[in-house]
């Protein structure tokens, strides 16, 4: 007989577990203080999508999102984690409503932050209208929660990325942490290729996809303030760091964001490719950025990367 294979303590598990590869439930289990997670409307409640059966498609008991509360370094947090493998983590009616309800509670309480572990392709096609509207409600609820003083932190490193309306919700958050495999965009690579031709965007050129939408580019642009290596433990540390960094939301932040984005457009509006942007930012051998290890990249980003702190 061989020794049992799983004799590792939780913190080590978090350090050795890829965030990208883990399920939504595993991400939460390892992100939060051990044993602290309590789910709201768990799978045993069987609150499934009422619409998938119209398309003869299988349902999932949690409709692809796990919401609840737990503790992070002892402090209470609300959490929501999308399961990117179920229908691409897409927003449907129930899926979206769970997150909306969580954010509304955060608004009322004001002091408990919300962590959203994005993993989504955007709107769920089979319930497109409900999904679109759910995203609109979530964007509104994020802003209301922030105005009420709650911090809303997005963690992006799942396999489905953070696309479509998910990208817009991420844009509403107080701050984002992103890992290298994480992607943030509105239109997906295939959609751009279909609309503009393979000459403009070859969706199968994954290096192109990642340097246009991937975590490193988003960090350098300042869309995300913290770059996490792809382990659950790194995301835990990133979440803690962001919670300590984020200030209150207000008009000044929006004005700063307007200036930040206008400056980006002025500075890089003529760039053809991410490498041109990185080069313009003064990075020598910018084409090598995708190859950099997490440590080296974080050092580079801390030196050269922009920030959206107090400007979002």
């Amino acid at each position, binding site marked *: 007989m061989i020794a049992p294979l799983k004799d590792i303590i939780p913190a080590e598990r978090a350090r050795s577990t890829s965030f990208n590869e883990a399920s939504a439930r595993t991400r939460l289990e390892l992100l939060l203080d051990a044993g602290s997670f309590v789910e709201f409307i768990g799978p045993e409640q069987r609150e499934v999508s009422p619409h998938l059966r119209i398309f003869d498609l299988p349902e999932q008991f949690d409709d692809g999102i796990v919401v609840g509360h737990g503790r992070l370094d002892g402090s209470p947090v609300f959490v929501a984690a999308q399961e990117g493998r179920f229908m691409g983590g897409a927003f449907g009616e129930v899926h979206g409503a769970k997150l909306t309800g969580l954010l509304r509670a955060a608004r009322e309480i004001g002091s408990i932050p919300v962590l959203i572990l994005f993993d989504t392709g955007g709107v769920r096609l089979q319930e497109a209208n409900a999904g679109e509207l759910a995203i609109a409600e979530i964007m509104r609820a994020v802003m209301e929660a922030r105005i009420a003083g709650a911090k809303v932190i997005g963690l992006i490193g799942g396999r489905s990325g953070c696309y479509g309306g998910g990208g*817009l919700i991420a844009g509403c958050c107080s701050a984002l942490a992103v890992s290298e495999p994480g992607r943030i965009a509105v239109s997906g690579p295939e959609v751009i290729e279909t609309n503009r031709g393979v000459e403009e965007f070859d969706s199968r050129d994954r290096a192109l996809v990642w340097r246009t939408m991937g975590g490193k580019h988003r960090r350098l642009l300042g869309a995300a303030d913290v770059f996490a290596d792809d382990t659950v433990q790194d995301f835990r540390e990133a979440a803690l760091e962001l919670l300590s960094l984020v200030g209150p939301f207000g008009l000044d932040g929006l004005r700063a964001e307007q200036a930040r984005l206008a400056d980006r457009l002025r500075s890089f509006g003529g760039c053809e490719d991410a490498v041109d942007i990185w080069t313009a930012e003064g990075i020598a051998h910018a084409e090598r950025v995708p190859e950099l290890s997490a440590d080296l990249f974080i050092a580079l980003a801390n030196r050269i990367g922009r920030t959206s702190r107090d400007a979002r």
Partner: protein
Amino acid sequence: MTLDDVLASLFPDGHDVRNDEGVVLGSAVLRSGTGMLVVGIADRTALGIDEAIRLSGYVLESVGRDTGPILVLVDSDSQRMSKRDELLGLNEFLAHLAKVLIHADMNGRATIGLLYGHSAAGALLATGLATRVLVGLPGADPAVMDLPSMAKVTKLSMEALEEKAKSTPVFAPGLSNLARMGAVHMTWSSAVSLAGQMEALLADMPAVQDKRDALGKERGGRVKAVDIAERVRDLALQTR
């Protein structure tokens, strides 16, 4: 209705609203004397980073100067689906526009969306769906997802999709479907003056609180959303 028709009917006494390559910016005064900031996207223009930053900037500049409501006119394409827009962070530009509108609404500048043409996906989220009240005009044809694309992804025929669309408003394009979802609060008549309908709305503006899920339940379009959201909210509040 065309943009000019809409503006003429809303502001029969004239207005100062310009359409610059699909980006609509300006202001007007209603007969009641209420001044309105007018922004929008016209001529079925795709909403990209260049358009979004102008719209958000225009609204932000008015903060502190103006106090009246903000009208968002919508006849757009989808978000602009290009490498350049995504490279530069289209999601941030669209979210920023939505945030500016939501912030204004919550700070005393009621926002009204007027959907008079097309819109879709990210463009609708950043404009009409980011307002407190979204009004539809007859003939508006929003489409979160068009049926041919859906047919491709779901591998169902157009006929099968159209058949399914008869029994549910949840996926098919169209103003009435969005209305049943609770996304479109009301549909005005184009036979009577829009100005009068606008005055009536402003006189009886719903509260700031987002009630679209309740509306969706009331209209039978989204039967679960409001209850699920309420239940999660209640459970979360108990942890306090």
